[in-house]
């Protein structure tokens, strides 16, 4: 069996060599994460690792704006998240929530807030955000 080299492959269904594990290009486009970011809000806020993210802006304690490189078609995309600290008490829960500012999320940016279980904004050091939607 050889290697296929092609610039544009137009395929109805992608399968493995046994004809199993089918995936359509539409499945791939809809189902793959369009952007993700691992960021640190402690000290000088910064991106630890990311995909399709331009930058983050530190707006204040626990408050940041994540800017996407290749935009979404509209503001109705899906974000899932988790957050936490590498310090503090064991029961100190944290949550990344989408800011309820009516101006966001936009096709290019989403504003996030991290809070502890007492509803106080916190600069957590591990914040994970994954985005799905149409581009």
């Amino acid at each position: 069996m050889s290697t296929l080299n092609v610039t544009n492959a137009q395929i109805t269904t992608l399968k493995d060599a046994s004809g199993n594990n089918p995936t359509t290009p539409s499945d791939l486009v809809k189902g793959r994460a369009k952007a993700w970011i691992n960021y640190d809000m402690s000290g000088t806020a910064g991106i630890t690792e990311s995909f399709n993210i331009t930058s983050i802006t530190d707006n204040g304690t626990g408050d940041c704006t994540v800017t996407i490189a290749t935009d979404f078609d509209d503001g109705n995309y899906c974000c899932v998240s988790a957050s936490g600290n590498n310090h503090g008490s064991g029961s100190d829960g944290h949550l990344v929530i989408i800011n309820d500012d009516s101006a966001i999320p936009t096709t290019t940016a989403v504003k996030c807030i991290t809070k502890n279980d007492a509803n106080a904004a916190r600069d957590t050091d591990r914040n994970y955000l994954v985005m799905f939607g149409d581009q």
Partner: protein
Amino acid sequence: MATLSNTDLTVADANITTLKDGSGNNPSTPAEIVSGRIKAWVNMDGSGTAHIDTSFNMTSITDHSTGVYTLTIATDFGSADWVAAGMCGTDNTTTHFLGTANAAPAAGTLKIQTVNDGGGLIDCTHIMVMMVGDQ
């Protein structure tokens, strides 16, 4: 550029610049697919004897104490800088939060904690976590 038309093409390795459907829509590059697809996920029950209900690319979970678990990944990430997101809950109306626990993630493990809205660690019956990043 040639056009290859075949109903069933079987090939061991396909080197493709852009994958599209039969109409030339829904494009994805291999880089987008690799960066954007979920590398591991788990649906687990943290109550009683904590166990995995279903998963992809997970080896095991370790139950440390109430609400605190380590997830062990089968095929590790390239570094500790990857992204996880998830949700958790029980069969009642209490709000629960999922976050990273007080330990730095590693290439092959992630320590998580589940917390109720009073800030106390709790064993949730439904814990769902997905992971993306570079392997």
